[in-house]
């Protein structure tokens, strides 16, 4: 495999004041999360006193068995799965259209797709709520899903579009030249090319939906997704240890897929059709 030789740029070393400031900022970013992990194992019931008196694993099965936690988790998973599916379809269609064609208002598409994420959550939330009020639509599972799908589309769109732009246009022509019609070409050549982008975009969309609180608050009515349930629990000191454990599990559930997605995006950058 051809290797790239990089001219080693001499790295000046930073003045220690910068190093300290940078390090402090990093610690500031990470310590709170580590504390959650720490507190998930404390023996104490009120579960935030420092230093923790002892360590135990007993909260974990308790948290997992909590019926409210389970209902909200189930709801969150269902919403995220459906929203991701919708986002995958809509995002890929939009990316394909933008990549292959020039049409009136093309730049506006990218802008419009990113709006739900770019504008503050309450804007999207209140807008949906207003629409529901105007059209007398009741709260339901579907109102949540539609809200989530809307802001998830852009993550898939960006990933797929970037992948399209990196791939060689001529492989589609080559496939048709060799006898495959449009559908066969899509299945045999385009889809495998997109696979990593779809996976990465899908994982990002799933995480985004899993974690979302603000828009969901406006579109869910009585139902509680996991983050909303956690939020409601935060105001109740009694169940602290369970809340802690749930929080820790949520972090793992969102962080690990993201790491995976980053790996996928990184790997696919090295695998494009190139000419020597």
């Amino acid at each position: 495999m051809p290797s790239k030789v990089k001219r080693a740029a001499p790295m000046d070393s930073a003045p220690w004041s910068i190093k300290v400031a940078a390090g402090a900022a990093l610690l500031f970013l990470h310590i709170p999360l580590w504390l959650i992990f720490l507190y998930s194992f404390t023996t104490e019931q009120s579960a935030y006193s420092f230093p923790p008196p002892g360590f135990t694993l007993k909260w974990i099965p308790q948290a997992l068995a909590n019926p409210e936690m389970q209902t909200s988790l189930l709801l969150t998973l269902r919403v995220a799965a459906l929203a991701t599916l919708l986002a995958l379809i809509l995002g890929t269609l939009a990316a394909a259209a933008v990549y292959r064609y020039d049409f009136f208002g093309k730049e506006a598409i990218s802008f419009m797709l990113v709006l739900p994420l770019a504008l503050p959550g309450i804007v999207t939330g209140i807008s949906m709520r207003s629409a529901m009020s105007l059209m007398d639509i009741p709260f339901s599972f579907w109102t949540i899903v539609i809200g989530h799908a809307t802001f998830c589309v852009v993550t898939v769109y960006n990933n797929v579009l970037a992948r399209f732009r990196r791939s060689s246009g001529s492989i589609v022509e080559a496939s048709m030249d060799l006898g495959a019609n449009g559908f066969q070409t899509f299945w045999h050549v385009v889809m495998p090319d997109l696979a990593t982008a779809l996976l990465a975009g899908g994982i990002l969309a799933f995480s985004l939906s899993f974690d979302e609180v603000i828009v969901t608050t406006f579109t869910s009515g009585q139902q509680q997704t996991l983050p909303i349930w956690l939020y409601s629990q935060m105001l109740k000191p009694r169940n602290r240890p369970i809340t802690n454990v749930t929080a820790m599990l949520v972090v793992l559930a969102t962080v690990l897929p993201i790491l995976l997605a980053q790996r996928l995006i990184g790997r696919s950058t090295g695998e494009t059709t190139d000419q020597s």
Partner: protein
Amino acid sequence: MDAAGRFVRVGMADSAIAFEGVSRHFGEVRAVDDVTLDVRDGEFFSMLGPSGSGKTTCLRLIAGFERPTSGRIVLYGQDVSSLPPYERPVNTVFQDYALFPHMTVGQNIAYGLMIKKVPGQERNKRVDEMLDMVQLPGLATRKPSQLSGGQRQRVALARALINHPRVLLLDEPLGALDLKLRQQMQVELKNLQRRVGITFVFVTHDQEEALTMSDRIAVFSRGKVEQIGTPADVYEHPATPFVAGFVGTSNLIEGEMARRITGSESRFSIRPEKIHLSSRQKEPEADTFFADGRVRDVVYLGLYTRYLVELDGGGDLVVVEQNLRSTSMDVMRARGQDVRLVWNKEHVRYVGS
């Protein structure tokens, strides 16, 4: 060309590809402008021209990636102008090879067969045969990213040829290879074509390449065909100033200067290798033309030397002479000297405008 003539053309037994007044416009731009040409069955046909001349667009029109704005494209008697690429008996070798990155070499080559639902065992057999033919035995399980440029190019060839197309289209396939490899591949491709016997349509901007490999060449400029002929035709009898200049060095003389040399003001071209350097003292022989001037520049190129001679009365001529007996020291001494350029009358080509 009257209606009867057209009919005869389409029905001609050995016409592989026929363009009839084909144009391809992109908005204002006329990439291909009313092109009529004919490619014969079994020949190695090159389309030569600078970038933007329309040659690649014509290739894509044959393949089906572009549709003509007007005119017809006929393949072996069948009008294919509105057929998509997957329904034409044509295969293409792309400039960037376009190998499918997620498939192995074997899967790439077998792709066309897979689409036609040829059973696996037979696919594998034919893939191995093709790999032998392009001299890449045993590489079926590698991925394209693991191959060198030259190897990828052969895989692209194999992938196209395995489908037994009636015409093979090659879009500047040797552009990315270094000189030695390119020259080697030129010979191999030519031999391959003779062996397989199908029609090759080859696009290139390198006139030397076209002259080396082709049975006939079509010279393109700005969307139009300037001339179609054998390499000798195109080189020795350029039909237009463009062809004279693009294929080889032109040395075009016209107007007052032409009258002084040949007696007529008709524009003519003379190839550099046909001119000899002589001294002004010597009497020019019969049946020759001559022109006096001073050597402005000398470029020693090992095999031959190129002289740029500034003529008395204006204009330059490029002269090329083999270094049969001279060394670099000898030829460099010519710089600044007064000379007389002499050439046979019969080597002069009068070029239309």
